[in-house]
């Protein structure tokens, strides 16, 4: 059983630092061999999880949720009231979505999600978090210089648009609902979902009109 002993944890960190190879691939290979030999997992099981998170569980899921909210006002209401529950309609609940909240962009509000203390992310609807989301640069700057961060992502906001930054410090997770691009009345739900970028659901993308122009 785990000990909840902080001194011990520090010592183990130091021992691992001293004794493990510095090359990540070698460290992970040793870890996998050991856990398999100890009967705790198998290569096939690891493969299955990787495939699940490569093919099925990813931002495509979030995009389907967003598209539905654009075409179905009743679903939109349910999503805004309780996103954790609303995504069960898709069977998308899972890791880190038990307390999912949706926050909506408007003409005057732009939302941006970060986790300054670690890298909390709604895995089950957005998949593996991009590396930038987990960097010290994004985590430190998103709460202090959100407009500078957005500029680097190519998002230029007018001064009259307020930025709302959501720092995921509890078990709540945030999903940004981007604005539906103009001129997309003729698109169906599936086509609309293809316009929704991963970054737009984190908040580092805003204007999906350029996506819409390419697609329509």
């Amino acid at each position, binding site marked *: 059983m785990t000990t909840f002993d902080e001194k011990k944890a520090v010592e183990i960190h130091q021992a691992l630092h001293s004794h493990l190879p510095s090359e990540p691939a070698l460290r992970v290979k040793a870890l996998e061999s050991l856990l398999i030999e100890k009967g705790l*997992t198998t290569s096939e*099981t690891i493969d*299955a999880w990787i495939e699940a998170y490569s093919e099925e569980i990813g931002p495509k899921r979030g995009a389907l949720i967003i598209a539905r909210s654009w075409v179905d006002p009743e679903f939109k209401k349910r999503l805004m009231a309780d996103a954790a529950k609303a995504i069960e309609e898709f069977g998308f609940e899972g890791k880190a979505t038990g307390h999912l909240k949706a926050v909506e962009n408007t003409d005057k509000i732009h939302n941006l999600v970060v986790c300054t203390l670690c890298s909390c992310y709604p895995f089950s609807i957005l998949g593996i978090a991009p*590396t*930038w989301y987990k960097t010290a640069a994004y985590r430190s700057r998103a709460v202090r210089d959100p407009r500078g961060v957005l500029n680097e992502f190519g998002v230029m906001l007018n001064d009259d648009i307020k930025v709302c930054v959501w*720092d995921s*410090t*509890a078990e709540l997770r945030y999903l940004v609902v981007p604005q539906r691009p103009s001129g997309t009345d003729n698109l169906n739900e599936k086509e609309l979902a293809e316009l929704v970028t991963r970054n737009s659901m984190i908040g580092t993308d805003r204007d999906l009109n350029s996506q819409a122009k390419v697609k329509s």
Partner: protein
Amino acid sequence: MDGIHDLGGKQGFGPINVTEPTEPFHEEWEARVWGISCSTGAPGITIDWWRYIREMTIPEDYLTRPYLDSWSESDMVTLVDSNICTVEELATGKSNTPRLEDANNITVDQALEANRMSSRRFDRPSNADPKYIVGNDVVTCQFTSTGHTRLPAYVRGKPGKVYAYHGAHLLPDAGAKGEEIAEHLYTIAFNACDLWPEAHDSNDIIFVDLWESYFDN
């Protein structure tokens, strides 16, 4: 813990690599880390104790090692702490105990179903009435728990306003010690201009989810 992980508002970092490939994994070992993490774990662990272990990563490693590598190293700490394996075994990749029967394989569909079933809730009943209602002004504590806490340094001793109330949730400061304490959780809205000296003209808002014992008033 006033550790290297508490990055909100720290200066000197950047720029951000905005041209990263969109694939979920950029290296084969990253994918393996994820698959290993999804399929194994130390018994009796809490999310808060895991995060605290991660916060105790050697600061130089925290800043310089690839993210999922450092993340995986925290998993290894839990395995050693729980006597599931030793540092030596992790260094060699070979078990020092007799070989056990292989674990069962699972399919992708089973992984998807396991993922779906892994949704967890952290709200718990509480007999105490919430001290605040939406719209109340609060001031966060300057002091925190000495160990794990989820009150980031950049919002300590700062004025904010209750934006939302979420019922009582498990308090991370207790969870990191293996204790279950349910405490009222709120989303607090902080004005950027109350947090950052250079933001005096800003109307931007930073929302942070904070527990009731994180407030002074």
